[in-house]
């Protein structure tokens, strides 16, 4: 039974732009145009405001929780060109690091898989993507991919930590040699894949299908299968599912999930990577699932029948 287990009244003074729960699903972080980030304890259907983080000087677009093995860490990015990394120490949330290396609004932040260490990717409207790696002792190592997307980068999403190439060819017994990869989407209507080689980030693939700005990308979690899947959505209302069964990771095929009538600005994969949540300018959320024969079908309209969204006609 799909059921609402909690309704959190955030008391934000302006519109909310992102909401995300932590690894265990016990805490909720929200961010808003009121320039604040709030953290709620939502255990057992409750709602306790844990922190109201002020530090951004503009609307806050997105938040991201790091893997808990590094502590309780939250990253937020804002119109004010800043990325702030917050950390909970002794039950109080403090600014751990503030990154000001972008020249325009930072639109997206995403933590890499824990296997890669504490690494954060940030996409900005200045066209660049920054990668912040915690090198210990309050130090962050910064790598910047300039002009990753002309005009601007709107979204970043990490690839799961899987061993690239054929699984069989992998020398066994040793620690798998992960290759860090992530995907980004931008105002050049492109979806780009990036790969770290010898400590340098290089453009690996360029996926072209959208006819307008790419608003969000989501790399599906891996459950151990050799294929990779990416979802991308765009201002043009289209959602594409990109799959790559090629062990070398070079051949990506696009499948149109659906064309919506308004901008689609968010895609999110379920933990098993078989359900995609799509949301956009029409104020609706739809869930999509791939059937056994490879067709994507809408399995639910979350807001249907709840009155959460009224018809705008």
């Amino acid at each position, binding site marked *: *039974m799909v059921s609402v287990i909690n309704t959190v009244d955030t008391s934000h003074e302006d519109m909310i732009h992102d909401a995300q729960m932590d690894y265990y699903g016990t805490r909720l972080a929200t961010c808003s145009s009121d320039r604040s980030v709030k953290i709620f304890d939502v255990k057992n259907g409750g709602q306790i405001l844990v922190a109201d983080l002020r530090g951004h000087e503009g609307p806050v677009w997105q938040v991201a929780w790091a893997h808990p093995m590094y502590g309780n860490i939250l990253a937020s990015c804002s119109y004010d060109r800043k990325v702030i990394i917050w950390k909970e120490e002794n039950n109080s949330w403090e600014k751990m690091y503030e990154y000001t290396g972008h020249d325009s609004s930072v639109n997206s932040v995403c933590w890499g898989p824990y296997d890669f260490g504490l690494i954060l990717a940030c996409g900005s409207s200045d066209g660049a993507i920054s990668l912040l790696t915690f090198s210990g002792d309050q130090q962050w190592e910064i790598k910047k991919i300039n002009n990753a997307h002309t005009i601007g980068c709107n979204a970043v999403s990490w690839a799961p930590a899987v061993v690239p190439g054929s699984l069989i060819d992998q020398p066994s017994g040793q620690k798998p040699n992960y290759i860090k990869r992530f995907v980004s989407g931008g105002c050049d209507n492109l979806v780009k894949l990036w790969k770290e080689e010898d400590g340098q980030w290089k453009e690996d693939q360029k996926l072209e299908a959208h006819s307008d700005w790419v608003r969000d990308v989501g790399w599906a979690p891996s459950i151990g299968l050799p294929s990779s899947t990416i979802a991308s959505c765009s201002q043009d209302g289209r959602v594409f599912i990109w799959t790559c069964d090629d062990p070398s990771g070079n051949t990506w095929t696009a499948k149109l999930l659906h064309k919506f009538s308004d901008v689609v600005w968010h895609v999110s994969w379920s933990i*098993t990577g078989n359900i995609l949540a799509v949301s956009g300018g029409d104020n609706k959320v739809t869930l999509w699932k791939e059937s056994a024969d490879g067709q994507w079908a809408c399995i639910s309209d979350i807001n249907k029948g709840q009155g959460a969204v009224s018809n705008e006609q």
Partner: protein
Amino acid sequence: MAARWSSENVVVEFRDAQATAMSVDCLGQHAVLSGRRFLLMVSLEAPFEAPRKISRQSKWDVGTVQWNPHKAESHVFAASSNQRVDLYSWRSGGGEVHTSLQGHTRVISDLDWSCFEPEHLVTSSVDTYIYIWDTRDTRKPTVALSAVAGASQVKWNRRNHCLLASSHDGDVRIWDKRKPNTAVEYVAAHLSKIHGLDWHPDNEYILATSSQDNSVRFWDFRQPRKYLNILSCQVPVWKARYTPFSNGLVTVMVPQLRRENSLLLWSSLDLNNPVHAFVGHDDVVLEFQWRPQKEGSKDYQLVTWSRDQTLRIWKVDTQLQKLCANDLVEDLMEGMSLTTESEKILPSPDHESATHISGQLADDILDQDGLLNSTGRHDPSGLPQTLQQEFSLVNLQIRNVNVEMDAVNRSCVVSAVFGTIQVRLVVKFPAHYPNNAAPSFQFVSPTTIPSTMRTKIQKILTDTSLQKVKRNQNCLEPCVRQLVSCLESYMTQEDSGAANPYLLTNPVTPALPAFPRVTNTYGSYQDANIPFPRTSGARFCGTGCLVYFTRPITMHRSVPTTEPTPRSLSALSAYHSGVLTPLKMRTESQSTLRLYGGSPTRTDKDPVSISSFYYKERKPLQSGLRRWSMQIAHDCPKSRRFKTKREGAEYGNRPIKLAGKVIIQEISCLLPVHKALGEAYILNVNDIQDTCQKNAAAALALGRRDVAKVWALASAATSLDLSPDCESDPDTDTPWARHPFGRHLLETLLDHYSKMSDIQTLAMLCSVFRTQGCSQMSDVQTLAMLCSAFRTSGCPQDYFSLYGQHAPGRSTQIPPHHSRYPSYTSSSMTSGSCSSTSDSTTTTTWNVGRDPEHIPPWGESSPDDYRYANQPYTDPREREKELHDMNKKLLDPTNTLQFDDFKKYYGEILHRWGLKEKRAEVLKFISCPPEPHRGIEFGVYCCHCRSQACGTQCAVCKRFTFQCAICHVAVRGSSNFCLSCGHGGHTSHMMEWFRTQDECPTGCGCRCLLQSTF
């Protein structure tokens, strides 16, 4: 602020006037006050002079009086008196009725001069007719509109000479004077009587109605079903009229017992709170009119007449006007040349009454205003199609930039001045533009930028335009913005002295100085490359949750839903630029922030917000009222009569919800993995049969019948009866795994559940069949091989420490030294100051005394991987046997890594569920080790000969490697030692010692307790 609410600068009392109507002439010289006995002519230049009088002597009050708005006829005014309209002419200090219009059979309710034809006057009456008179032929009306119902108001459209509107109780009818038989549009505007009607001064489709039902509503009569916006008041609204400057609105309420007589000035961009209250009149305000602006003056004057028999003139200065405009961009543009008031009206995308373009073009457009249904010029997509339309819609209010557009010659000239740089760019549009035909860009004198720069900018502009026209989109505005950002970055280059030409390769990133400007430019054109913010979204979180947020139910987009959400944040500029038509009005944005006058700390520069894009369709009347009353209390703190209204204050403070709720939904039923199963599943390697059966029962209990069946199959497939004898001869016996019901069956199952993404079933199957593989076949043999392979290397036991304890079925076969005990000892030797009694320390021992380059890490010892360890098989029989062993396994050993990934990922999910023990159970079956320990490692060196030691006795000098500092006996078991001085001993002894002491028991002087972590 306080100074402003008494900003009247002229108060004149005319005690005996008894005037019911008032009008200001189009030159702003005279106001006529019409009473029953005489008309008073007040000179607005010298209001204190005794007014001239025109005798009237009628038993009827004057219903409406209005001066002719045309300068040529500025001496004429019309006054209605019962069923008749008298036309007066006022010349040289005297006036008289020169003609009367008679035709109505009942009292005339309203009259209005046409602002296009000086002779045309419209009158409405209770007799259900609306007459249009030509004053040159006064015998009968030239047009009679039959309304069936009596009209209370009639007003000419201010942009279209054919259109007029009338109000009939709660309805509004729109008429085209060429179609007198029937109204062209009906608007069921209010539930109660409409008292006031006013056309938008600049938009021919928009009008405001004020009604007895306590509201002012704004309409686009093309969409008669839904008002554009609503201003809710506490009391019936007598009149609501647009201001001559942008976005303002003045209201007068129907007097109630409380005697609320002030006029309120509103910004139509923010209808929550009035911008200003004109307080002063002691009685009902009967009429208010704007005095035409004097030449060169930026201030406006509002002339009001009240039943308190005073005429007041209020000054509305530019600051107050700006509050109506309510915007930031305008502040930015203050230095611009083109912001005279008349030019400030920006067209909305929905209509083309553009005023930005001057002269001929504007006239063209006005000339096109014909019948209503001739509006087929609109492109349904909202994109302008012709060059002329693009010119009329283009928004180029950019500082220092001037654009002259010439639609006839299909060209425009962009001139910009940035400090020392001057640029003049001619853009020529080909005939097919914008259908895949890009305009050309040519710099002409007096452009001062170097030619390399010109070429660069030209290329950028061409690229930009090509990108647009490829999609048949217009490109002028983006190109100009591109040009500006190029020039800006060029400027900063020049300023910084660093002539880096590559900066220009990313011209869309204008070099902005510092943060303070950020807040000012939010949503402005500089944000053209920032995506429009998400206002709703959904995200899978944790394991089975979907977190989503949407816009509040009451927040609606202010543009029609057929139009997609803009892609760029710069679209917001249209919503706060003050040059907005009411079509884009919003009500609920930031009202808490904009308590004008209520919070003096608030600067005028209110932040622009994304919520500006949305408006509340229908605000709850109740809260609207209370907020309003709160506002009054704030605005008029000195006014005692408002004190009684404080009871509403606490409601007024209630914030308006701009943020919707965040909803967390449990969707785990949609997922192929189940927490309940994760809890219920067991992995008992001692009894695989039992494990399968119990798991089958668990799956059945949860309703996963398919999985229950799989477990039943697994139970059958792992039956001991099927397993070949461990020592069977490969030549005589085909292993069960080669049977169709063996590996093939399992692979089919795995394939199926891979497609379902059922990682839970996958991982469990892999675990169960892996144990099956291990325990069923050649444990002893593998063990023997391992032992021989690693005998010299020291620590082969570790493998068994993981596996041995779970395979008691073979425990008798394991040589005694492969039990966990020895490894326990070795770990105790090496574990530093941490207590080593738990077997968790086993991982820290792997590298002790080993050289990883020569000795394969422990993971190599897994039987599956053994094959790849490049161990030379000297004996072909051995090799064959190995192959045979592989073939006997139900899980294909070549896919081991993938199976490991299943388990790892399932382990991750179990971790998220908080089922850590279950996770450990599953991860036990991973062939590949977790990441080897990379931190500090502890080694033991013999204290006598300094050679590295392993075990309790030094291999070199044969003495005990590690003596307890207390009892001087070699330590075998649990030990602790100081990291600083290296002394230590039995844990129990150390504990006892340091309970009372803090120095090392050897007397070395080390303060071990402080130095290390005892």
